């Protein structure tokens, strides 16, 4: 039976990994949201057919290749070409680039769901296209995409676990190391699961709360 001391050690080590996982998720989210927003806007309002095609191709590619393959390419592939990324950096970039396509789809769908009159009304009061986007279209589009955005963030935190495959020191990476040194296999993985739940549940609550808040004042 595991002693309390072993349990404390497991928890402390895995919590360290959880902190790293949250950092990776946050970094990937910022990259995914920024790039996804830019891509969605270009795909929706861009006048260049070539650009829209390029974005569609990028999204389609990312959708049909597992994230793990991207992480391997960024970490091992680039290293073999002489460019050595840190595991954390590779994880952030890899998950961020995959996430950008998810969010691009999401934001583009939300933008398209708005009535063209919303944009025309903004242009007709004399707003520039950029300000129309900033003050009229994006606030509405973000509201529409909030529930799916919540799902995405939850999924993203779970997906940080695949970064263990490139030795990023997150929860599952530490868990496997601990298993080989303590053999408390069941306990270790149960604690890991609890830690993920403890990270992700509050995210869901926060999104649900924000949605209710936005509903309330309308």
């Amino acid at each position: 039976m595991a002693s309390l001391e072993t349990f404390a050690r497991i928890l402390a080590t895995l919590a360290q990994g959880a902190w790293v996982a949250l950092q990776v998720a946050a970094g990937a989210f910022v990259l995914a949201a920024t790039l996804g927003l830019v891509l969605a806007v270009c795909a929706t309002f861009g006048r260049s057919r070539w650009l829209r095609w390029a974005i569609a191709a990028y999204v389609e590619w990312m959708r049909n290749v597992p994230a793990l393959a991207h992480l391997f390419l960024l970490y091992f592939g680039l290293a073999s070409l002489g460019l050595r990324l840190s595991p954390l950096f590779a994880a952030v970039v890899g998950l961020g680039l995959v996430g950008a396509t998810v969010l691009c789809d999401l934001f583009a769908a939300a933008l398209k769901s708005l009535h063209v009159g919303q944009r025309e009304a903004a242009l007709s009061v004399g707003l520039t296209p950029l300000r129309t986007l900033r003050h009229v279209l994006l606030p509405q589009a973000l509201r529409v995409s909030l529930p799916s955005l919540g799902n995405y963030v939850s999924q993203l935190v779970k997906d940080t676990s695949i970064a263990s495959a490139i030795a990023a020191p997150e929860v599952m990476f530490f868990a496997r190391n601990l298993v080989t040194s303590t053999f408390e296999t069941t306990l270790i993985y149960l604690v890991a699961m609890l830690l993920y739940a403890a990270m992700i549940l509050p995210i869901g609550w926060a999104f649900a709360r924000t949605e209710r808040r936005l509903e309330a004042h309308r």
Partner: protein
Amino acid sequence: MNQPLLTVEALRKRYGAVEVLKGISFDLAPGETLSLIGPSGSGKSTCLRCLNYLERPTGGTILLGSERIGQLPVKGGGFRLMNDRELAPQRIEIGMVFQGFYLWPHLSVRDNVALGPIRAAGMPRAEAHELAEEMLDKVHLRHKADEYPERLSGGQQQRVAIARALAQRPKLILFDEPTSALDPELVGEVLGVIRELAQEGRSMILVTHEIRFARDVADRVIFMDGGHIVEQGTPADVIDRPQVERTRNFLGQVAGAPAVVR
């Protein structure tokens, strides 16, 4: 006659093989209310939407005062179409009220009216809010400033949309079938506000199916059909004594139109 506020010349609009506007020319004197009437598909809404370049015309010119709308001279002669960014300052001068209101649902009524002044005209926030209240007063909705559009009736929403257009301090206001999406019992309040604006001497162009209203408030009426201006003149001439067969037929079909006097 003094210098027209708006001069439209040989305006054309083509979608692929279909030409919806086949050379429309008219002008508008300052303070004048002009009504565009005609059957669906006659091109009257397209014509109106071309005036602030929400639709890009395929030919012709639009002058607001002496300012050419939507086109910039290019080196070596000729003109090119402006993009939406270049059009923004010109659009401030032309207010527009849509059939579907298109208030912004994420903003309060006050912010709906103040957004243009703040973000397009660069007015300080406090001043813009004051202006918004003033304009809401004109449409008798000052007490709704803190509400969100969703909580308002269609008639109230359209009046807020009118206040939003007024807050641009436009030289010209375009109304695109402003009562067509309203329940019949809400039409009156919107027409009432438009009538007050006409009496204030605002320059307005009104596309409408409300023939009786057009006759009451318009200084001049243009009847369009098939992308052409068929007939224009005072309401008494066009609506009460139409000269052209097509005008007579149209007016005869419109419910609520007065009996045609020959």
